């Protein structure tokens, strides 16, 4: 009886497995993470620059990765996005510099990485910069790309996921120059919140990091508001829109405004003296004034009617 029940149990389990077990065919998507999100390097060569990068496979499947180095410039919309150079626009400076960049795993140069499910690897970015390297900036993204060998027997697109981090390199930075390219708001407002436009231009040859704030004074000279600006990396010879720490737009949230206001922008970059610019704007609460006028006219009208 024991043996019979065991055989019966085993057979039953086997049938269930054969009937219902899921069929495994291929991996379902990719999921990767990378850290840090930006690497800024300032160097006076000769230097053997080394820094760490963490890459993690967040999926439940192993993944093969290769990497590419993509030189970029600042995008034309000044919002801090990158614009990749076409291969045809690469200069010998780009290619010579990128040849000096290597990725190491446990001290060994690698061109491919295999990540097991949920595995994280600590890699080393190594840049060998000789003494005679030209004193200019280089900007590139280190992009890890998934490798895909699936070839179904039909029409298809293979999907490749790429995730990257940006690397800014200044070689022999000579000095920094920046200016405020734009500081503006509407000259007349009927109420808050008030939105400011701030653009900083890097007119130097090396990338800079800018921070700043806006102080708002009322007609009596009292400080009535302050908006902190988020630090921004601005590439050489480019302009960037500044943003607030809280969200993308620079907004003074005060709602009820009346009179003349003076807004002073202060921008700091690297260790250089603060840049500043002032603007004025007038706030007239038109809605409230119109409402009060209508109420006043109505009162006068009603009074006259009562008297007559």
């Amino acid at each position, binding site marked *: 009886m024991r043996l019979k029940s065991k055989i019966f149990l085993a057979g039953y389990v086997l049938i269930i497995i054969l009937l219902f*077990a899921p069929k495994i065919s291929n991996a379902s998507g990719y999921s990767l993470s990378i850290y*840090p999100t930006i690497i800024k390097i300032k160097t006076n060569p000769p230097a053997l*620059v080394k820094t760490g990068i963490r890459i993690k496979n*967040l999926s439940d499947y192993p993944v093969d990765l290769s990497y590419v180095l993509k030189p970029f410039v600042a995008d034309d919309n000044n919002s801090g996005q990158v614009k990749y150079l076409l291969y045809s626009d690469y200069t010998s400076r780009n290619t010579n510099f990128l040849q000096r960049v290597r990725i190491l795993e446990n001290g060994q140069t690698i061109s491919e990485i295999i990540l097991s499910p949920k595995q994280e690897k600590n890699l080393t970015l190594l840049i060998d910069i000789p003494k005679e390297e030209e004193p200019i900036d280089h900007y590139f993204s280190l992009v890890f790309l998934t490798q895909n060998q699936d070839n*179904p027997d039909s029409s298809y697109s293979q999907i*490749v996921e790429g995730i990257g981090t940006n690397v800014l390199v200044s070689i022999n930075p000579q000095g920094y120059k920046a200016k405020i390219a734009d500081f503006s708001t509407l000259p007349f407002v009927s109420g808050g919140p008030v939105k400011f436009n701030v653009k900083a231009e890097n007119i130097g040859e090396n990338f800079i990091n800018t921070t700043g704030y806006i102080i708002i004074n009322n007609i009596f000279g009292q400080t009535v508001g302050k908006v902190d600006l988020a630090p921004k990396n601005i590439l050489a010879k480019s302009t960037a829109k500044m943003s607030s720490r809280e969200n993308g737009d620079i907004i003074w949230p005060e709602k009820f405004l009346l009179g003349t206001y003076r807004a002073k922008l202060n921008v700091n970059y690297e260790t250089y003296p603060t840049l500043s610019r002032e603007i004025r704007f007038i706030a007239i609460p038109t809605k409230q004034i119109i409402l009060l006028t209508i109420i006043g006219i109505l009162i006068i009208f009603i009074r006259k009617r009562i008297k007559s």
Partner: protein
Amino acid sequence: MRISSKLKKIGLVLILIVIAFIILRNRTIAQSASNNFYTIQGGEIEQKTLTNPGESSDKSSDKTTSIYFGENYQITAGFEDVEDSQPFSFSVSNTIVNYGPLTPTNPVSRTTDLIISKGSSKGYSVFAFANRQLSDINNNSIPDTTCDNGTCSETSAAVWSGNLSFGFGYRCENADGSGCTEDFSKTGYFKQFANDSKSEAYQAIINGFDSRKAKIEYKINISNNQDKSNYSNSITFIAIPNL
């Protein structure tokens, strides 16, 4: 008496096994499967193993920025004003987009979900490009769509709804707030993928400041003149933090 209690136990075990398998059998690991008669597309499968990068528990240090010095160099890693050190993450929901058998004037649509977690970055862009047009082994290719009025390209979008407009194109749909570029704000607007083999510039399809989810819709419509064949290409999505 003993035997009946054992039988009860065995019965209980069998019931548990059956329940477990009934629940687990819905867990399809395959993303897409097809033969000559059918295609099961991953976009329709509800239970994906796609990981939400936002749920990553990586917190290796308290502060985002680390400044350190080596011989003749200084490195700043991370952003100065961001307080946590979450990694930047990116997920795509499938490794293959299987279009199945293509028939003339019968458009085929497929989708891929993209999930971006900004981590300690200050916004990001997702770029997309194809390595070539959809091509077969004889180098016949399905052209990139020019949409209904012949004006869409890899840089500009236009409406594509007619079954007599042929080609291959895509659109980006916000599944979670905003993020897809303005080109796709109107329903039914499509673009071509930038073609790497023609040295076309990679196009940003998503510019985001917060963690977002977007859906990429691929569309193919072939004409009667298109050779019956299997066409393929490779589409790359690159997510990169802003500066």
